[in-house]
């Protein structure tokens, strides 16, 4: 039977559709997850980070000594291996202001472990506070600050970048020029300057608006770190706006909203996630930096930055308290290392150029 090449039969169409469905296979995310799992380093980093997050979240329920109870002694005590001193009794709940949920966790701890607490496995600092406990409690502050500040930079950066990319033309040009200019300012000087100014109004802010120092901190850091995010997002939006698949979507009559949420958002999201894993470490380091300068976290609260500062201040030629430097640094380094490795892994996993290969 002669048949025109243009006139497909019903069977042919069904066959084609069937083939297309089979070819589409996995979504971007399933594919990315599969590739991430195959990357052993990235996957173990993810598991490690999950562990860190869990420990920090449930810190009040763990049988650790109090991170703030002072035990006036002459000098820091070196680590005691768990097999020689497993733990002791005599724990007293002593913390800074805790939220209701944390209070419940402390109650749970008291119910399960009573007044039993672990020994000083990682040693104590100059004021007799348990280093392990301080690292665990410090992780809460550090992670919270990092997440909140990153979220803040994310909000500003994504909005700014997406707006710039979507508006295009002259507006885009001007908006990006502003970013360029801000980029070339040593912003941190301005930030320090601003923080000292804001410090003048600390008590008012706290009493009247309930804004404490950390919140100022998030906002300030967010205001610094949004620049790169804005650039990245704008670049992505701009390049996606002109890609064939968006044209194709438009041709088949997809609405603007559909194009935005089905095509643009997932693609921008992947690069945003990758960038997040790189911003969080930067913010954690910045927290340490500001804390070192006396502008960050203040006692009695504790953060990894504060621990690192405490440790480095105890460096002296008479006696080397290595555990004060090594353990906080190790906690920070391993977490940041894991974030970096995860970020690299995610970038590889989400890179569309590599999709479907290997």
């Amino acid at each position, binding site marked *: 039977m*002669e*048949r*025109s*090449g243009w006139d497909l039969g019903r069977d042919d169409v069904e066959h084609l559709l069937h083939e297309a469905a089979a070819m589409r296979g996995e979504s971007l995310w399933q594919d990315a997850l599969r590739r991430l799992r195959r990357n052993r380093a990235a996957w173990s980093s993810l598991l490690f980070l999950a562990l860190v997050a869990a420990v920090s979240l449930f810190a009040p329920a763990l049988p650790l000594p109090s991170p703030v109870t002072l035990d006036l002694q002459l000098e820091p005590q070196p680590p005691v291996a768990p097999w020689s001193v497993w733990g002791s009794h005599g724990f007293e709940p002593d913390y800074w202001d805790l939220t209701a949920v944390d209070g419940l966790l402390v109650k749970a701890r008291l119910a399960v472990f009573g007044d039993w607490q672990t020994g000083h496995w990682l040693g104590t600092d100059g004021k007799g506070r348990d280093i392990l406990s301080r690292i665990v409690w410090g992780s809460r502050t550090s992670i919270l600050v990092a997440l909140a500040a990153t979220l803040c930079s994310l909000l500003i950066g994504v909005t700014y970048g997406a707006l710039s990319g979507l508006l295009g033309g002259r507006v885009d040009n001007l908006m990006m020029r502003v970013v360029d200019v801000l980029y070339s300012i040593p912003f941190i000087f301005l930030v320090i300057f601003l923080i000292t100014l804001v410090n003048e109004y600390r008590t008012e802010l706290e009493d009247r608006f309930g804004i404490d120092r950390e919140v100022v901190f998030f906002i300030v850091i967010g205001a610094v770190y949004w620049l790169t995010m804005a650039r990245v997002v704008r670049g992505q939006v701009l390049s996606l706006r002109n890609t064939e698949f968006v044209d194709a979507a438009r041709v088949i009559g997809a609405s603007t909203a559909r194009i935005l949420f089905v095509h643009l958002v997932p693609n921008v999201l992947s690069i945003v996630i990758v960038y997040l894993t790189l911003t969080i470490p930067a913010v954690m380091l910045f927290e340490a930096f500001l804390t070192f300068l006396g502008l960050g976290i203040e006692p009695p609260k504790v953060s990894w930055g504060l621990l690192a500062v405490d440790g480095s201040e105890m460096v002296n030629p008479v006696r080397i308290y290595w555990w004060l430097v090594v353990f906080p640094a190790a906690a920070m380094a391993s977490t940041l290392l894991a974030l970096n490795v995860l970020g690299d892994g995610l970038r590889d996993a989400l890179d569309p150029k590599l999709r479907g290969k*290997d």
Partner: protein
Amino acid sequence: MATPMLSVRDLSVRFDTPHGSVRAVDGVSFELHEGETLGLVGESGSGKSVTNLALLGLVPSPPGVVEAREVRFGERDLATLPPAELRRIRGNEIAMIFQDPMTSLNPLLTVGRQLTEVLEEHRGLSRSEARTLCARGLGDVGIPEPEARLDAWPHELSGGMRQRVMIAMALLCRPRVLIADEPTTALDVTIQAQILELLADLQERHGTAIVLITHDLGVVAGMADRVHVMYAGRLVEAARTDDLFGRPLHPYTEGLLASVPSFDGDPTQALASIPGQPPDLVDLPPGCAFAPRCPLASDACRARTPLLEEVTDPRSSRRRRSACLDALALAERHAGEASR
């Protein structure tokens, strides 16, 4: 026939990946004679480029592993030559041009620098001596104002011009063999014709033997003296160009030829295509790799891998080679069609 200038015996290349070993090239043998043009055709991924990269030791290792019984080039065996000596042959006696002239030139060096370094390396010339020769070389490939072009950056040239630069670069040392890997694929159709003409013209003047790698049967038909067809890393048919086009003795070749659109074809007729996909080279089943897509496949085809064997074409009585068990049947069918 005279002794071939290049003769390859049982060349295999595999890539060891975490997901298994990929046999990109499997037991390929062929010969190249003085001044001839050998076409090497096949779908992408059939191993035609890797075959030639392997000859020159350009397969990245790891993950690539190259094995060959012999790669005789004149007096030497390229398969056992130490890397430093093989390097002295590359770009000198055997030169290569690549598919995409946009990415094959270094964007950070001037055209002149990329040309002169070839002569500096292989001829020991000074840069100024090399410049004169390079300008002449650019003139030879039809580039106007060659002196001025030496100082140009690659991005300042059009695609066709860049491919001419690549050809000039390859021919600077008057190589005996030129391997052209899809030299026209990335170019506009009009430029394609110019470049092919240029290659043919240069071959005539210098007597260079050319290995023309392409998936474009039209290019092969116009240029090549002989054609080898590759499928899934193996040679499946080898013949003189007119024999191959007239009477293909392998169903894969037949399918390829049928899928070429032609001017005198019936415009209402759907263009034929070979059903299915090329096989995954990681776990190649035993038997003929083409069997799953072949209309003639029998149990025998799936049982063992057919080798490239000599067949006598009943019509021309010429000896040809095909890796199809049914080659003779195909030949007879052609004979029948022709007599009808």
